[in-house]
């Protein structure tokens, strides 16, 4: 009675719609066998200016992980080290596919994140272009090496597909880990969607390697919402790639024994307790953060600004958000307008450097500022409030917050707008998270609690 089961044929199990697309018959080798690295070898280097501003683009409907892969394919990446963690795993296994295809020259699966982030430091010191990615607990496990990259002036790009880190263990989106990265000395960009992720990674390499920057770049996105969902991404031809890293362009020597020995790692006085030790370390920290400051001009040039403002002129209400919260806020602005509320959106692309002056200019006239976030602690509200203090009389609502993997219904945001304007008590944001009310104690409580 039983019918013979059809045997399952696996075709390119690691493939995705782009890599598994049928390939043209090959003319690569004498025996008619396709050179697996043929396409990679034929890639043409173009300038960053051409790649970002002139090269024609085609739109694809792909996941965020696939966007990361396509960005790395076009970024002339030398080396990547991978370690799986949900929801990042797909990204680095796709980079593995690129390694198989010759687009990435060196790749291995590391032992765990501390080892991976250390190896990325080694690769960057060797003078090659390096990429890796992690998420949530992986970010914290790798944090000691990650936060040392900036101090060692190591250009590299690390993608953070943010996820819950607190117990009880969960794999869901929650971007509290960005709070740790903000103080690491690296540049931190926050991608709203698939397109941002693609652009920020490619531009991140170029900005990271600028001589007066020479710092790592963290490209964050909210896990699953961006990594696993599909969205439109306009991409340059895959036959193009960015110029290779010039190891001698950095502001500190690479450790290839072709330079006089780098003093950075050598001077024992830095380890000692004396005036020179304090002074050397203090000056070094100042220089790292000065490098962060100097990256502003490149972010303005390549990324069209540290923030994006929409409908902010004449707006009574401003929604300020980054990442997936910006996507929800964009819809909230539309719904507010339907209700006759004059609302605008400020989407922050670069969290480090932070668009302080831009916010001071844009927030001067607003009556109400609402800052929705996908974390409990409200790191963005803290930065915004600090930046515009004294430059705006707006009431600031640090919320709504969702965390632990919750999604953020647009109504949560519009409710806050209405409560903020009418003075009605909010269901989700405690009084202590609202600044600019008549009660100064509430403000003090807010600053204390975040």
């Amino acid at each position, binding site marked *: 009675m039983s019918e013979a089961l059809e045997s399952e044929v696996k075709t390119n199990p690691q493939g995705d719609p782009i890599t598994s697309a049928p390939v043209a018959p090959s003319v690569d080798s004498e025996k008619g066998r396709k050179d697996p690295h043929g396409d990679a070898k034929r890639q043409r280097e173009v300038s960053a200016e051409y790649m970002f501003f002139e090269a024609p683009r085609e739109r694809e409907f792909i996941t965020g992980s696939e966007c990361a892969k396509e960005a790395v394919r076009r970024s002339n990446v030398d080396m990547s080290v991978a370690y799986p963690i949900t929801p990042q795993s797909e990204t680095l296994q796709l980079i593995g596919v690129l390694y198989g295809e010759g687009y990435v020259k060196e790749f291995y699966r590391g032992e765990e994140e501390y080892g991976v982030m250390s190896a990325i430091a080694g690769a960057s010191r060797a003078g090659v272009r390096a990429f890796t990615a992690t998420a949530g607990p992986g970010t914290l496990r790798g944090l000691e090496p990650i936060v*040392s990259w900036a101090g060692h002036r190591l250009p590299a790009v690390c993608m953070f597909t943010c996820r819950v880190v607190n117990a009880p263990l969960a794999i869901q989106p929650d971007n509290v880990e960005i709070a740790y990265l903000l103080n690491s000395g690296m540049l931190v960009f926050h991608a709203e969607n698939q397109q941002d992720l693609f652009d920020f990674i490619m531009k991140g390499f170029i900005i990271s390697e600028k001589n007066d920057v020479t710092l790592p770049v963290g490209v964050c996105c909210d896990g699953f919402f961006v990594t696993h969902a599909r969205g439109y991404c306009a991409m340059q031809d895959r036959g193009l790639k960015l110029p290779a890293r010039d190891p001698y362009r950095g502001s500190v020597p690479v450790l290839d024994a072709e330079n006089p020995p780098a003093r950075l790692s050598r001077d024992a006085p830095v380890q000692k307790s004396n005036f020179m030790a304090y002074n050397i370390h203090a000056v070094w920290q100042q220089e790292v953060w000065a490098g962060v400051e100097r990256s502003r001009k490149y972010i303005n040039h390549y990324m069209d600004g540290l923030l994006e403002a929409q409908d902010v002129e004449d707006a009574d209400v401003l929604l300020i958000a980054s990442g997936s919260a910006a996507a929800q806020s964009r819809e909230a602005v539309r719904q507010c307008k339907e209700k006759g509320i004059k609302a605008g959106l400020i989407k922050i692309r670069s969290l480090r450097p932070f668009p302080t002056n831009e916010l001071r200019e844009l927030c001067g006239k607003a009556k109400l500022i609402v800052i929705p976030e996908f974390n409990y602690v409200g790191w963005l509200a803290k930065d915004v409030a600090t930046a515009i203090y004294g430059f705006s009389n707006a009431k600031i609502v640090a919320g709504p917050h969702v965390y632990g993997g919750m999604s953020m219904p647009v109504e949560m945001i519009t409710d806050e707008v209405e409560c903020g304007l009418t003075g009605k008590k909010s269901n989700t944001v405690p009084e202590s998270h609202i600044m600019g009310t008549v009660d100064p104690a509430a403000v003090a409580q807010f600053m204390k609690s975040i």
Partner: protein
Amino acid sequence: MSLDYVKFTPGFGKFMPKEYRDMVEHGPFGKKTSVSQVGTFKEILEEHPMCAGCAMTLFIRLAMIAFPNPEDTITVGTAGCGRLAISQAAIPFVYGNYGDQNGVASGLSRGLRLRFGDRPKDVVVMAGDGGMADIGFAQTLHSWFRKEKFTTIMLDNEVYGNTGGQESGMTNKGQVLKMAPLGKKFEKMDMLGMAKVAGCAYVATVVPNNPRRVESVIKKAVLIAREVGPTYIQAYTSCNIEYAIPTDKVMEDAKDVENDRYAFSEYLTDEAKQYLGELYGYKEYLPKPAAAVTKG
């Protein structure tokens, strides 16, 4: 800094850093030096802030003399006494985070191979027993399992010396130290056995009171790591402070420990033997010529 790739325009050599010129004119860069010539040339490690009588410093000094290509060698280390001396040397040193040395060296050596191909850029990890067998254990073992081509040297003083004398995994059982108030409760870790299991192509133990032997094992380890696979040297480098060894008895102690538990040992894979024999003239590793057949 490599000699072959930087050629000074005549008259401009004097603008190179003095320490580099000294290494070329009076030191080991570009020529062969040996421990038997100590005192006649400028060494890579000349000054250090280590304790008087420190055997570890002597070992590091000898190791650096033994590097086959010092001008193309990059050292990697971690927190511990050793880095205080290594960081004073005239060759680049990566001092990263706690226990990250074999991870950093993995990325570094692969990156350098991408850029320089077969041109040797020797990566040598030198770190203490705590950094290697305790906090950096996973990265040490995984770099060996991955067959990363660089040399790992453990400066084994059987204690956390730099933090003030706490028990490490390499401390001997029963030893009373800080954090081991009742004596260490488990055996000294068998890193040599693990190195072999994990696939190191060369594994050796050595003590610093035999300079020629130190020189020999370092040279072999660095050469084999260029092409064959990971190499591991475990050196007894006593801590005369935490183990209260009188300064003038440090070499005597090294001899005693060598006799007690640190006898010289050397393990090479067949591939490593063939490589050394064929490429670097180590005749002892070449196959013996077949004995003449005699009629019975």
